[in-house]
């Protein structure tokens, strides 16, 4: 079983992963010890740098008693000498029990899955899919709110290029959450993607006014707006100001609204927000561990 795209999962299957992740929590926190993956080896191939995803996969493996090996940049490895991904995968497949892959090319994880006999977990392929991120986001919402459906989720930031928000909004639509997309005019959700979400029976709202959208939100999901997307620095400054999460913005929000961010943040969320009970982004980052523990245990056949 490979974990390549969130689209490969039904709602019931995702819910099952979240249930298993829930059971992993005491071990993820270090309160209990586990030998569930004793003797298992994870091949961790990061063709692009990633701090959170790689460390949480390796932490998940270690918490379950397994080991990880691999690289976090292809420099110096056979990859730098021009080896194809297919060949690297065939080799690692022989050394490990499962493979986690981050790669700049879209579709890389699906390709790896074709060449590996062992399970492949996609840790992000270019502008494509990043399913474990989506699952930990869903886990965080369910943990804080008790459920996913029925929540009004406002997603703000770079909705045009942000891969996290595409997979997440699809999954949220599948769960029947209400969606509002807030972005600067040039970074709005692509039409194709909106259509896809509508085809799932959801009528998302789109806009540019964050203050207005926040008033009715149960979840505020913030993503980074990259400077490079704006040829004019003054234009970037304006946009960055209009989409900043600070205590003033939270005045009109529901008391129990949660704020999420896939991190790293630059200055989308002011540090004063960190100590409010609304801030869930550090817990969200931690949740990567139990969710990835659940997925590793499942693909390695240690739990159903």
């Amino acid at each position, binding site marked *: 079983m490979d974990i390549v*795209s969130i*689209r490969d999962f039904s709602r019931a299957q995702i819910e099952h992963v979240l249930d298993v992740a829930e059971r992993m929590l005491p071990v993820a926190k270090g309160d209990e010890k586990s030998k569930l993956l004793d003797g298992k080896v994870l091949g961790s191939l990061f063709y692009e740098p990633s701090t959170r995803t790689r460390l949480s996969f390796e932490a998940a493996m270690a918490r379950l008693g397994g080991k990880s090996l691999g690289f976090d940049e292809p420099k110096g490895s056979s990859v730098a000498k021009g080896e*194809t*991904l*297919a060949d690297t995968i065939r080799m690692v497949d022989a050394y490990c029990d499962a493979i986690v892959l981050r*790669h*700049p*090319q*879209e*579709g*890389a994880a*699906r*390709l790896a899955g*074709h060449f590996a006999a062992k399970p492949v977990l996609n840790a992000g*392929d*270019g*502008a*494509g*899919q990043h399913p474990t991120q989506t699952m930990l986001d869903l886990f965080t919402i369910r943990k804080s709110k008790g459920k996913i459906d029925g929540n009004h989720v406002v997603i703000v930031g770079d909705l045009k290029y942000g891969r996290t928000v595409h997979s997440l909004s699809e999954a949220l639509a599948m769960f029947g959450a209400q969606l509002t997309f807030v972005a600067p005019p040039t970074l709005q959700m692509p039409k*194709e993607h909106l259509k896809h979400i509508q085809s799932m029976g959801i009528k998302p709202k789109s806009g540019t006014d964050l203050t207005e959208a926040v008033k009715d939100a149960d979840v505020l999901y913030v993503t980074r707006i990259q400077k490079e997307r704006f040829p004019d620095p003054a234009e970037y400054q304006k946009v960055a100001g209009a989409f900043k999460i600070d205590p003033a913005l939270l005045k009109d929000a529901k008391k129990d609204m949660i704020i999420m961010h896939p991190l790293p943040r630059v200055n989308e969320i002011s540090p004063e927000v960190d100590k409010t009970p609304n801030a869930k982004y550090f817990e969200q980052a931690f949740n990567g561990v139990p969710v990835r523990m659940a997925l590793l245990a499942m693909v390695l056949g240690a739990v159903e």
Partner: protein
Amino acid sequence: MKEFKVTPIRNGTVIDHIQVGTALKVLRIIGVKEDVSSTVSVLMHVPSKKAGWKDIVKIEDRELDPKELDKIALISPDATINIIRDFNVAEKFVVEVPQKIVGIMKCANPGCITNKNEPVEPEFVVESKKPITLRCIYCDRITTDISENVI
């Protein structure tokens, strides 16, 4: 016989009802170039009894292989293949868009792993036949611009 604008052929293939304007793409697909060694006639923009205008390609002494037929189906789903033997239409069939498209088109997404020298054939699922919409099984990108990407 008065409808013939070109000399009849003894043996070969007539590709009829080609979507008007795509005859040159059909020639590219079947590999007709300067070095062609059999007679090929191309009729472009001829009136069609079925639908407005069409193109026709006639090739002597040649039958098409399944990959070529699949490619023609992709760019001109209503094309009719007439196999001519001894001046008569010996076989006639309409091309058919296959369920799975393997190795006859590249992915339109430049960032797709299949465009990077990996030992795989690009592969697509047909999401819709009219208009032809293909989804790359690797990167999920939808391609509608078929003729630009036929290999």
